[in-house]
């Protein structure tokens, strides 16, 4: 199966290893992975900041870039939600693009959901020595209804123990530009999340959204807590031996 990887701008810029982990997982599952080079950003920052014009321009570009592929995989619930849920609404009045966006939405998948729901793949070649906890991103959980898929996959890793975070349905306080526009409120929210992560007893945090991860990691590192952080794809692909997000490269 030929699969296009929409890597998302945050992975592209901050954590390319997530992109390579996604490629490895998809190849392990028997897919041929292509990376359309014209991809930049899904337009969510503009969309959620009220700049509809820019959002529409970017959405059209993404539709043009991805429309030729039968399966598009995205290692993010947030960008996945943008393409699957919001594009059809955003582009509904644009000639040609309305129907294209609606069609494309059905061909886009968040990574863990694609592996489990479409490929029925769970024979992972990965081990992780540690106690993991999984953070649900709001968009994965509520826009895409993804909850069991990442847990199912993590459960198939050698040596992995999964501790649940209390109040796992609550937001980490990232919210795109929310976290820089309202830093005091955002900090309070991420503190609540970090406290619950600490209480879970896990030594490693994973999630499927780099936005949440950058936010939570940023706070964890500022507080000097000994918790490692990875994108779920890195752990699933067995690529979590190196430094976690925000960690010294010599570790």
């Amino acid at each position, binding site marked *: 199966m030929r699969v296009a990887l929409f890597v998302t701008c945050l992975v*592209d810029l901050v*954590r390319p290893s997530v992109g390579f982990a996604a490629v490895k997982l998809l190849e392990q599952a028997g897919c041929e992975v292509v990376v359309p080079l014209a991809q*930049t950003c899904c337009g969510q920052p*503009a969309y959620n900041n*009220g700049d509809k014009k*820019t959002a529409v321009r970017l959405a059209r570009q993404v539709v043009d870039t991805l429309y030729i592929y039968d399966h598009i995989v995205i290692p993010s619930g947030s960008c996945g939600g943008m393409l699957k849920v919001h594009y059809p609404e955003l582009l509904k009045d644009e000639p040609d693009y309305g129907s294209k966006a609606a069609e494309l939405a059905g061909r886009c998948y968040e990574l863990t959901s694609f592996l489990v729901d479409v490929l029925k793949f769970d024979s992972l070649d990965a081990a992780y020595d540690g106690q993991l906890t999984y953070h649900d991103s709001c968009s994965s959980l509520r826009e895409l209804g993804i909850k069991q898929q990442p847990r199912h996959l993590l459960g198939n890793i050698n040596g992995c123990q999964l501790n649940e975070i209390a109040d796992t349905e609550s937001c980490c306080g990232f919210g795109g530009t929310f976290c820089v526009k309202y830093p005091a*409120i955002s900090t309070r929210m991420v503190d609540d999340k970090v406290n619950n992560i600490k209480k879970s007893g896990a030594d490693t945090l994973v999630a499927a959204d780099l936005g949440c991860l950058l936010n939570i990691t940023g706070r964890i590192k500022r507080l000097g807590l000994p918790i490692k952080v990875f994108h779920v794809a890195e752990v699933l692909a067995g690529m979590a031996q190196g430094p976690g997000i925000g960690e010294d490269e010599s570790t």
Partner: protein
Amino acid sequence: MKSSSLTFRKNAEQALLDTQLQRALDIAGSGFIDKRRAAMDALPEYEQLRHTAREIKEHTLSRLDEYLLQFEQQVLDNGGQVHWAGTPKQATDIIVSLCRDANAGKVTKGKTMVGEEIGLNEALQAAGMTPVETDLGEYIIQLADEPPSHIIAPAIHKTREQITTLFKQHHARLGLTQPLETVPAIVNEARQVLREEFIQAEAGITGANLLIAETGSTVLVTNEGNGDLTASLPRVHIVIASIEKVVPTLEDATVILRLLARSATGQEITSYTSFFTGPKRETDLDGPDHFHVVLVDNGRTDMLGNEYHSMLRCIHCGACLNHCPVYSAIGGHAYGWVYPGPMGAVLTPLMIGLSQAPDLPQASTFCGRCAEVCPMSIPLPDLLRQHRFNLTEQHGVKLKSRLALASWGFLAVRPRLYRWIMNRITCLLHWVSRGRGRLQKVPFAGGWTQSRDLPAPQGETFIAAWQRQQARRKADNE
């Protein structure tokens, strides 16, 4: 009510530092959330009810004029009167004049959020009357001279100790000086004080959770019974309700009532669900001699059919507040007007103007929990986003944000240029981080770095690395 929504950001920061408030919010904790969940788990037909309730409301809104006129006719037939108020001023004028006609010096009040919306207490006081709140929460904040901070639990921001102190201050003159160490003791003292007020009041004002067109009834849910005493002891009962509260039939009302208490407090039904249908009849032992309903528009007809139409389905259960992480962090007062939380962030800009409350729709992470628990399936994040679109159109967005977004947008639609520039930026940031994996200070990123480190890019972008890898693979194959 005077608004302080313009200073939302400052209000929120102060709220986060207010230890008493934070303690009260902490105590409230996840109580409402857990109770709601238990109630819904015990209601297998929840989704079906939710669907039916939405259809009832949408149908009613599509013929709002007809149902309101039917409601009026039924109230008249029952011996009551209906008054129509377009603006808050018209509404308070009508109510003040009704109270004057009743020679009212003292007016008891059941909880009414529309009353807060139109500034009713201020208007009554200005007219020389004394409004007395009889809902315990409302009574507490009236003593404290504060607005409600939650639409169903108006004094949720107060701790028990604060309430005890307030009672001591205000009740000593009544000879009530016994220590109040338990919640029942607080309730009993309030009951004792309010009992006298109920007897003295010449007029009673209540809100309404629903209006029933086929019977001309107004429906009120309470847990304290104060609504019944407010309605039936004085000679004049005035109901104040916003126009979207009407439903066609008694049957329709029961569908919404089944959702309301469960969504609000997790109760299957509130302790009291009262139906007020006209003044006292000859055969009735109790009840008012006069029954008035004041219907308030205040911008709601403008919402009919526009982008915010679905907000008119709101039944004011408060579930969106209880599940909102922003509301839970800062409480209701920071929002600066009558309605806080997600529903307030949608309504406030519609009622006092977007330019007066630009932060409210922006201060949301769009986590979507509000929409998920809304019994009327109102897409609250979408409505907040619509406000943000409007804010951009009205040039209400700050220059710094506009510039940042514009340059991002400019680059993002030029993939080649974007790739070239971004790859240089990520390499630069990686170099600056000197292998430490994170940055503690970044120019123009103070909002992030004041409380968080910024994880540094790993080096070149994924696309750049991928292109190199593909080229190498190709070379190897050749």
